[in-house]
């Protein structure tokens, strides 16, 4: 009985019952079908998505970096331009200011010259007038004075005129000296 049992069981070790094979087949097929169909393709897709996310991130970062560099370059150029412009404007302003100063000075000098000239002219004219008036007045006064002193009218007009003029010329020449 023992031998028979061993013989029977021993043969079944390597010759499995068909029903067990069917169970194994169905169980494994179900697992295989579900995992291969529904799970692992999604994992592959997820790997792919992850790779893309990382590579996309790197690309975006590179693009941002390039953009930033471009902007920096642009700003630097603009800054340099602005500096040049500022210097130019300053120089222009300085030159303008100098020009204006020169103009004003020239005008002022001209004006002062003109005023001085005008003053001199006026002074000369007034002096002439005064001299003329004085000359006439002094002549008259002197004649009146002389007539009163002398008590008599100096009839001779020509002599009278000649002596007054001579007198005055003497006065002038002594005054000038």
């Amino acid at each position, binding site marked *: 009985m023992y031998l028979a049992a061993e013989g029977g069981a021993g043969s*079944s070790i390597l010759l499995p019952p068909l029903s067990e094979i069917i*169970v194994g087949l169905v169980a494994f097929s179900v*697992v295989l079908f*579900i995992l291969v169909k529904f799970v692992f393709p999604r994992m592959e897709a*997820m790997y792919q998505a992850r790779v893309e996310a990382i590579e996309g991130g790197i690309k975006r970062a590179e693009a941002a970096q390039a953009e930033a560099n471009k902007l920096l370059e642009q700003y630097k150029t603009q800054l340099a331009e602005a500096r040049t412009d500022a210097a130019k404007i300053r120089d222009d302003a300085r030159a303008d200011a100098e020009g204006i100063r020169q103009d004003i000075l020239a005008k002022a000098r001209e004006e002062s010259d003109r005023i001085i000239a005008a003053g001199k002219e006026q002074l000369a004219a007034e002096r002439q007038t005064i001299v003329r008036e004085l000359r006439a007045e002094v002549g008259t006064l002197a004649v009146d004075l002389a007539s009163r002193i002398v008590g008599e009218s100096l009839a001779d007009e020509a002599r009278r005129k000649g002596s007054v003029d001579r007198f005055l010329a003497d006065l002038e020449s002594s005054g000038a000296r």
Partner: protein
Amino acid sequence: MSEVPTVLAAEFPPGVESFDFPSLIPALEGTAWAAAFTKVTLLVWIAAAITVIFFLVTYRNPQLVPTKKQWLAESVYGLVRDNIAKDIIGKEGARFAPYLTTVFVFILVNNLWGIFPFAQIPPMSHIAFPMVLAVFSWALYIGVGIRKHGFLGYLKSSVWVSGAPLWVQPILVPIEFFSNLLLRPVTLAVRLFANMFAGHMILLVFTLGGVALFQAESLFIKPVAFLSWGMAIVMTLFELGILALQAYVFTLLTATYLQGSLAEEH
């Protein structure tokens, strides 16, 4: 409680009949379907369910930045995909990663029953299951080879050893044919089966042996039972390594065969 060891001890020494389980449906006992509803097939179904549910739940709503569970599922797939499929088959390997991962996980979870308390029987110690897996792998690598090289081209590439002198070919061709096309599935199945069978047998020997020693008449022999049980615990840990290794080896060899089918030269 004292009766339980008596019953167990009656089974010592364990034999091949220790791997036979009665049908869970008594009415089927004695019919052709008796083996379809046993503790072993129940464990296979539970393992299949655990595998499927684990992956479906962890990958129900995948995120770009993975959650912990999603990471776990991905790392199982990534392990097989990158370390087995891509390393051995090459860049085409990713195509076979889903099949290889399924095989790996299916074998691993089933094997874990071997040391899981109260289950404690690896379904792969019934050759029906390794046989199914081996036939799947066999059909796959032959199908891939035929699709790549054509029927005759694949036949030639698998049996003809290029570079060998012509007069050796009559000897080599039958050997190559036999080993590459017929023996591979057998060795795949038997390797897995025999490892799990032997591992379970060792655990049975130490556990039941301990019971037998404990029930011995002599007081001097009784303490040796604890040594035996201690060995059973050590062997259980050892078995954990073996069962993972066998799942890995089966997957690795399948990948190697696929690589052979895709290679240009034999």
